[in-house]
């Protein structure tokens, strides 16, 4: 988990930097799994070809923006025979809600899978309500 991990602080204070010079016409929509438990929300995204240097995560209290560039080394003069994937830019965004503690966001990237974990504020976690007898 420590390799390829972006520390929480780095993610929130990172400026919006250009990850590539050319803007492709179309954008790849990475498939995601999003699930919530009592402690927070986890997002997993498939972004093959993206490494730590070409990943750009922006988070504020309202939204999470996930961007990345697929970096694939190809020989010069290669001719395309078949292509399922026709862009190199991933981008997807999600609206967040107030009870998510975005300051404590945690992100890691391994083998093209991005894992983002956003904890919920302590007071927002489900509390068991005691029922008084009588």
């Amino acid at each position, binding site marked *: 988990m420590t390799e390829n991990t972006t520390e929480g602080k780095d993610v929130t204070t990172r400026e919006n930097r250009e990850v590539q010079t050319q803007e492709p016409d179309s954008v790849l929509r990475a498939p995601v799994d999003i*699930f919530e438990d009592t402690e927070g929300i986890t997002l997993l995204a498939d972004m093959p070809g993206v490494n730590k240097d070409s990943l750009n995560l922006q988070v504020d209290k309202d939204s999470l923006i996930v961007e990345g560039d697929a970096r694939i080394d190809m020989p010069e003069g290669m001719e395309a025979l078949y*292509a399922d994937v026709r862009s190199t830019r991933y981008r997807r965004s999600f609206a967040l809600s107030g009870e998510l503690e975005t300051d404590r966001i945690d992100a890691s990237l391994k083998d093209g899978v991005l894992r983002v974990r956003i904890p919920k504020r302590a007071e927002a976690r489900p509390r068991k309500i005691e029922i008084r007898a009588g």
Partner: protein
Amino acid sequence: MFSSLNNFGGSLFDEFRRLDDELNAASGRWPWPAGIRSVARGTYPQINVGATADQVDIYLFAAGLDPASIDISMQKNLLTVAGERKAPVEKDADYYRKERFDGPFRRVITLPDDVDPDGVEARYRDGVLQIHVQRREATQPRQIVVQ
């Protein structure tokens, strides 16, 4: 010989966009025969195939694979790639989206006839499985003298 890591917008992906336009235009005119071994668009893992005079490169966009589970084999010019990507459902969690593929896969790709089954190399990095296949040396074009 190899373009830099940053040079991906200018060459191969422009080719893919041109290919995209051509395929779309063709499918509008008449039913384009699909390869008998082809799979539905968007099936995991997605594949790109490119060629130079010396080699054919196959790129499988397969994030989250265990490299040990990948099985690559070649018979003549048919390349088979099989593996499994585990994306198990977390217990005690409510899922809002489950778009990522989970399970075994198998792709069979028909390559040009002049590929060399003994010249195959594979590398898995950042979720992309790159397979390089050497091509047999083409016979030299014969000069024909006009009498």
